[in-house]
């Protein structure tokens, strides 16, 4: 990394205002393979951060460390003032405040759409059934598929399933939403409906970290774009800066490959 980019990098990792997620010199190993190398990033409240980069660059691992689906080895991760440690209570608390949307949806196939959504509020927040179902229907309205409430996930299209998955995460009223390549498993004609739902969410002020290959979405919605390669954060900047005048050679190469 050159001198100049170091300074840009240092500035850009700092979010505006008060940070809700902070990663501080985080390392992650899978055996002898280092998946994350000295990752530092801070995300402010209501900020939308889009993470891009070639496959195997550690994007997914980074956001999976934030809610402890993967365990980081060194460094600190703080979510809304709670530090992730081996303490199970802290982990549970952070998971309740972060929603996650997966590439493969991971809806529960043995439960109806509505039961998928109400499960966590009822089981974790102890919300009464009736109230949870009203809340679930409200969320289904929000993702625009209330008519599918009684169906099973297997009866829905991929795009509908992913919107249910988003509603399911929102049901816990999370402060942060993590999206792990939410449109990568979808047929092209269904990508739009999921991205629209995500845009709505961003407009409402949700804090979001989105791992995606959808450059259009990044350009339109992101406050900042993070480019990762080989387990490191290579470059961080506003979409405009990032797509028009990237500084790092690695970034330029990647952009030339995909754009």
């Amino acid at each position, binding site marked *: 990394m050159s001198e100049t980019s170091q300074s840009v990098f240092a500035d850009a990792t700092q979010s505006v205002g008060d940070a809700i997620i902070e990663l501080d010199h985080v390392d992650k190993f899978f055996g002898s393979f280092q998946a994350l190398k000295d990752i530092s990033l801070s995300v402010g409240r209501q900020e939308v951060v889009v993470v891009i980069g070639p496959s195997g660059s550690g994007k997914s691992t980074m956001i999976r460390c934030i809610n402890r689906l993967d365990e980081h080895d060194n460094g600190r991760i703080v979510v809304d003032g709670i530090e992730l440690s081996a303490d199970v209570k802290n982990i549970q608390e952070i*998971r309740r405040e972060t929603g*996650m949307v997966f590439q*493969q949806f991971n809806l529960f196939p043995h439960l109806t759409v509505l039961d998928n959504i109400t499960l*966590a509020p009822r*089981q974790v927040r102890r919300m009464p059934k009736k109230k949870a179902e009203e809340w679930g229907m409200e969320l289904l309205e929000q993702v625009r598929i209330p008519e599918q409430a009684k169906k099973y996930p297997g009866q829905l299209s991929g795009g509908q399933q992913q919107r249910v998955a988003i509603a399911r995460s929102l049901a816990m009223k999370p402060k942060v939403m993590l999206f792990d390549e939410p449109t990568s498993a979808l047929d092209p004609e269904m990508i739009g409906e999921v991205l629209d739902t995500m845009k709505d969410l961003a407009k409402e002020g949700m804090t979001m970290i989105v791992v995606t290959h959808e450059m259009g979405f990044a350009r339109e919605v992101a406050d900042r774009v993070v480019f990762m390669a080989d387990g490191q954060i290579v470059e961080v900047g506003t979409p405009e800066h990032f797509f028009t005048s990237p500084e790092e050679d690695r970034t330029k190469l990647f952009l030339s490959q995909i754009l």
Partner: protein
Amino acid sequence: MTTVSVTKPSALTWVRRNLFRTPLDAILTIVFGSLAVYVGIRGLLFVFVNGRWEIISVNLKLLMVGRWPADELIAIAVALVILGLWAGLIAGIIAGRQVRKGTSAIEGMTRLERASDLGRRFGLVIATLLLLLSLTDTSGPWLMVLFTFVGGVVGRLIGGQIGVRSLPSWVSRLGIVVMVVIPVWAYLYMASAVPLADWEGFLFNLSSAAAGVVLSFPLGLLLALGRRSKLKLLKGMSIAYIEAVRGAPLYVLLLLANVSLEFFVPAALAPSKVVRAIVTFTLFTAAYIAEIVRGGLQSVPLGQEEAAKALGLSPTKQMRLIVLPQALRNVIPAQIGQFISLFKDTTLAGLALGILDLLNAAGAITQQSDFRGQGLIIETLVFVGFLFWVGSFTMSRESQRLERKLGVGTR
């Protein structure tokens, strides 16, 4: 239904296509066809003409319930009627719940269709019961079956009413407890009339198989979870247990249960042979159930657990609400298969422990002075085999139905 119309081939065309396509096909068809016809005719002749079935009708009580005292038979009747009511209640509640959820398969059916559906499911059992009843010369068994049937119908009607209602959760929890207690009570009630040690005949095979199923399932589940546990000791113990039990023939374990207990327990305190048989069945079947359930747990994608974690569910709830229901559903056929095995293997206990179960009783009656030396063992073995087949086949059919209902492989 597709609208493409295909002219149905005539019977002759079908025969030519399927049975006589090539010279080899023709030869095979003729050879095995005549063999089948021969065996079929011999079988029918045996059943309806040559078979001397009076040995069965004379000894029917011995075959069914062994030497159960005649004046205590009322206990069996009472227990059966209660169990009929219980089974009806459960069937009714399940059906009612399906109506409420709009997933009922029978709601749109006419009465006739429903009856034929029931006939397909339980016709074989009903026919067998009628056959057995026709062999009796007293009215007791008729009344018992009649009242059990009435109990079942009454239970079904009441259960249907309960099922369609939305009940407060404490009521349904209490209801589940009651539903668990009823069969246990029936079992203990019968055991209070005649000690477990004296349960014989087909009653022994049925009741100890049922007890083995009920007890081995939770134990097998715990073993499966133990085998996946992160606690090294628990994991090691589970694996050791499963592999040790699966490595031994059931018959050997039953023989061991017969002789080895005296080494550890004074004879006066040693449990009866029936209890030993049930314990051995339970311990044996649990090891197999554990492996079946483990297979089921592995069949659930990792993403399911991750999604449950990400929602903040506790590890217990991740397992209980998300992973286990899917895992168990995926292995219903294998589980029922294991239970069918257990049902049939109860005959081994008769031999290993010297219990007068159905098979042993069937052998013993051929030694009665009226029947000795007449080769009637064929008739009795056919009878025993038939009863086990009816039970196993019915379980197998019900398991397929359950699979379809839960939509294994479709969603």
